[in-house]
């Protein structure tokens, strides 16, 4: 499935997500622009506007913990997310930022339970 695409050392990667969170060392996620843009409104905008990120084939985040970003990218690829006390609020924040309506809905459901 699509998760395998993300884990294997796949030569079709064409886009890199770099996370420089606080003073930690840069965390990179290799992925596929086609999948990102078709499954996320945010990445769709980012890629189709053909700005710097599109030209350089990478994007950099400062305000997100690497684990959270990784979970979000996993969600983009698989449509599944593992929620727990630890990550729920942060996942809600990131899903709101990226305007991922379905994810916002499932996290809200989780929290209300």
């Amino acid at each position, binding site marked *: 499935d699509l998760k395998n695409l993300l884990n294997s050392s796949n030569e079709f990667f064409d886009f890199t997500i770099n996370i420089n969170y606080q003073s930690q060392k840069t965390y990179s996620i290799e992925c596929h622009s086609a999948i990102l843009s078709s499954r996320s409104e945010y990445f769709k*905008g980012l890629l189709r*506007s053909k700005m710097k990120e599109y030209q350089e084939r990478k994007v950099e985040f400062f305000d997100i913990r690497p684990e959270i970003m990784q979970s979000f990218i996993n969600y983009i690829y698989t449509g599944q997310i593992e929620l727990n*006390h630890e990550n729920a*609020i942060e996942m809600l924040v990131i899903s709101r930022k990226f305007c991922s309506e379905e994810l916002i809905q499932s996290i809200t459901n989780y929290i209300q339970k």
Partner: protein
Amino acid sequence: MSRKMILRVPKFQEPKRMEKSEAQRLWLLLKDAIVEVQHMNASTLSFEELYRSSYSLVIAKRGDILYTGLEEVNNHHTKNLLDKIAQAVDERFLIELNSQWQQYKLQQIMIHDILMYLDRMYVKEPQLKVFDLGMFKWKQNVLIHSQINDRLVRMLLGLIHMERNGEVIDGALMKSLIQMYVDVSLKEKETYKQEFEERFLLATSHFYKSESNLFITNNSCGAYLKKVEIRLIEEEARIKQYLDESTGPKLIKACEDELIANHMQTMIEMETGCRTMIQNDRFNELKLMYRLFQRVENGLVHLKNEFAGYVRNEGHKIVNQPENLKDPNALITSLIEIRNRFEKTLSQSFANNRDFINSVNTAFESFLNENDKLSESLALFIDKKLRGGFKDSNDQEIDVIMNKVILLFRFLSDKDVFKKFYEHYLAKRLLSGRSFSEDLERTMISKFKQECGNQFTSKMEGMFTDMRLSKDALDGFKNYLQTSVEMGKLPKIDMSVRVLTQGFWPTFPPHSCTLPPLLSQYCDLFTKYYCHAHTGRRIIWQTNIGTAEVTFRLPKKTHVLALSTYQMLIMLLFNDAEKLSLKQMAAGTSISFMDIQRSVKPLYSGKYKVLKRTPAVEKSKELSENDIFELNLNLKCKLHRIKFAATSQTDSEPERQHTRQRVDEDRKIEIDAAIVRIMKSRKALIHNDLIVECTKQLSSRFVPQTSMIKKRIENLIEREYLERFPDDRRRYRYLA
């Protein structure tokens, strides 16, 4: 479950207060970027940075700065664009407008993407969404600006006009510019409808009004129809090519109104129009007309009425043509021919439309019953066919003709009249041995049976049974004669008798005559034999429909004459006399004078004359009682056997009257039966309801006259089947 959930709340997400200066800084950053986007210099900007800035402003509750700022920037930008576009001259105008519009649309998508968080989390009704705001500004400041809108619509309509006149235009450019009106419409394509569509439809109606008026006056209807069809196809293509699909039905309606609806009357009436096409069986043109008329309201009604009117008119002509009135065969043949012709028109041109078929049938019903001779003519037509007219046709052809007969029969309102005539001619065929084939007779009857049921054909079938039983009876009689004592004393003659059951056969008008003694004796013998074999039966001799063969001895030659019984009686008189007046013939045979006249005529005026009139008079002269006849001993004829017609083939007027009278008698009985049936089940009924019900029940056989029903009701009251209510004279009660 009451487990409390502890959620980890990260520190950095605690709501931060944002300084005004910080907010201003972020907005300026975004504003510069938007201006860069508007100048197509986006490639060096960082999407994430811009997105994050907008996100930060919104979560810090400073979305308002961003939204109003955006509105201003768009406002400013579109106003600049207006000047640039308005300056373009001639065709450059459309191209410039289009390229600016295409760019603007892309920019608005980018701005929307950057400001997605604002769009989703901040913008609330009635504020416009970010993209819609961009569209609205373009509409307000560019599209509907007085320097643009009118000029644009005029140019677009001008191009469409050119294309309708056969020139080639840039379809892609048209599509993009027309779609612009749809894109800037906020709801239900209102800008498109108001600014473009309305004027386009008006121009279309205008164009086709003048084109169609001109074309139809200078061309034939057929050419016009083809033109219309092509135009409609072109407009369908136009919709697909560059109009919004919602315009489709309206555009087609406008074209149909101008091209078809407004000219329907003309297309029907013009010299080359519908009437001529129907007259000349122009199936393809009619088919096209049908297809086109079908598209407009009431179109087919017009066409149908015209066609039905033509059918009625043609039928009316046929049933009233003097030659046809004299010749039943020609009448029915022509009717079958036009029926075939119209069926062809119906199937080839009018898609066998139910309504069309029904109205043609109604037309047939009306003209076929215009003339009360039709029932008889139809019976005569079949008579001729069954007397040998089918000789040269194969089974399939015969079946086709029979089915057409049934079809015409179906339209007759007085089926009982037809039935009487049919029975009459069937009886004549059977008794004179002129029926060509019993199989065909039975096929025809079975078709009537299918159509009307057992009751209709039971008498006809009875006739066939009688014919068979008669043959048996005759064989029995011949055996009886051989063993009979009396037989030895009598000279031998070959007598053939048919026993007809009363009721199955038409009652022939009663005639009397005196048979020669020998024949009388034979008749008595037969009566004796038959009544002995079938006790309780009574035999009445019908001499007037019999035939006889008589040997005619001339000095040099001998002939056998095939005659009717009456003719035989007349000829036998000449054994004892040289000359006889008609009066004397009548006296010698007890035959009525009228029958004498009819019987004598073929004997002296046909091809072979066995009698001659003395003194010779002009042929055409009417016969009178005192005319004298003698045998023609100079008869020259190579044939040994000479056949004479008994009477003319069609019935004489009195006979026809007689048949009609019998129909009336039968109707009385049918009406009585119907009234009693109805009253028995309903017990009490108001006069009018009884009339209606009665007419309905009888309609499959004939259409009773109201006056006749009234008389029958009176009669039934007299006979105490019914009575009037004492308090309401209009109501009847059934008396059991």
